[in-house]
């Protein structure tokens, strides 16, 4: 591969896959807002879903 192509391969990986990693880390560190407005609590689901797996 040429140097220019390698540079753009690395740049694309850093920006796109880096974006994925950064957004995943951001979500893991801030999975929920500190406080919600009052209300908005959900009742049970009708599909009897399995256990909650929130990040």
């Amino acid at each position: 591969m040429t140097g220019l192509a390698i540079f753009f391969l690395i740049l694309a990986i850093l920006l796109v896959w880096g974006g994925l990693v950064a957004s995943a880390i951001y979500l893991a560190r801030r999975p929920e807002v500190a406080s919600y407005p009052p209300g908005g609590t959900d009742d049970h689901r009708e599909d009897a879903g399995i256990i909650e797996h929130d990040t």
Partner: protein
Amino acid sequence: MTDAATNAPTGPSSTKPREEWTGQIGFILSAIGSAVGLGNIWRFPGVAYENGGGAFLIPYLVALITAGIPILFLDYAIGHRFRGAAPTAFRRLGGPRGRWLETLGWFQVAIAFVISIYYAVVIAWALSFFVFSFDLRWGDDPAGFLLGDYLRVGDPGVSFEFVPGVLIPLLIVWVATIIVLAAGVAKGLQRANVIALPVLLIAFLVLVVRSLFLEGAAEGLNAFFTPNWAALGDPNVWIAAYSQIFFSLSIAFGIMITYASYRRRRANLTSPGLVVAFANSSFELLAGIGVFATLGFFAFQQGILVGELEGLTGVGLSFITFPAIVAQMPGGPIFGALFFGSLTLAGFTSLISVLQVVSAGIQEKFRLTPRVAAIILGVVCTLLSVLLFSTTTGLIALDVTDQWANNIGIVASAVLMSIFVIWVFRRGPELRHHLNSVSTFKVGRIWVLLVGLVAPVVLGYMLISRIITLLVDGYEGYPAWYLGLFGWGTVALIVIIAIVAWLIPWRESPDDFAPWPPLPEASAETRTEVTR
């Protein structure tokens, strides 16, 4: 006042709890499964290569940030705030004087309905080729095999001469789809994605790593990543970038509205949205590397340059070029099985999301259970799919319908959504407030500007220029009557479905509803509206 008392849903919606994803990861995997589809594998690599190679990264990322992610957030906000499939959500968004906005929801449902009917056929082809891979059944003439032996393509027209090789896998795809939809959101859609997505990722990673070790792979990657800076001055390259991002993310035709409506009310929206958007682009980049490394091998085998190869996108890439490569490759059957298996899985997880748009719409309008809706919808779709696309004219009908449903239907849907939601009903600030109330990644006023201005301007340009091109030049040299029937006829059918479905009375009105959280300054007004 307790939480239960302040809980926003009132009337019918409080007596019948909504289905939900089991949590954040279930939603993210399902949304990625929807976004990662056939286009990621067969469209992105060729589009990037033809529009500047490495330089395409710039318009691509600009399009992702200025249109893709903002419209994705708009879909999430509408579905989550108004807690319904597209017709319900838009009807509620329209308020007492804008109930007719439900038609926009049905417009999106109708697009999803049409797309699902032919999308299933391509998955059926991929499933067939997965099986054919094991004995390389296409021999040394993949084009002749695809068009002649397998699809038995005839002249443009309406034929009822069925092709058994397509019919059987098509029925398998539809049965699997009906089973998943009937099982509901958590036990059907989510479970299918939780299983299929990791399998897809592993299979595709193996394929990409293998491709990197092929002779000539470096030349393929050179062709893919070497930037052509002159391309950045070409407006068509920028339109191609917006177009790729737009079609790839599964936005603006109801999928993400429907998926977001199954998140619990107290759920983060924007931060998972960023993960979904970047995961979709990450898979596209992976596909670009794998496809062009493989094409480099093919060019090397033929003693030509990558630029001299033909069939670098779409059906040609997947069902003619790739089989030809596989036939020349050591360990070809395994490589072929991985490629077509990946194509089948990526397509299937997208198909179920497209169908859920329709299923959720009719569930809410006619008070059907997921199981009944899946069976009714599945039977109708299977019949239409078999009658129209498993015949000797199926490939041509599919090509024409896809061109109009995507480039006119979905793009028009996005433009209309932006104009009505942001400009006519002026819900931008409310939706922004909603996103910021529940999400950890806050969006500024610029978000309203992007969905209200950039999206309609860029997409509006795409829409008008495509309509003019199709009117003036036709498409692929097909006869005008045929384009009228399967092309413009598809658009007319979508509009008719939107209006007729709106006119049908609801089994139970969705209007007795107050969005949560209320706008601080508008909460009194909202309460009045609810009691009215």
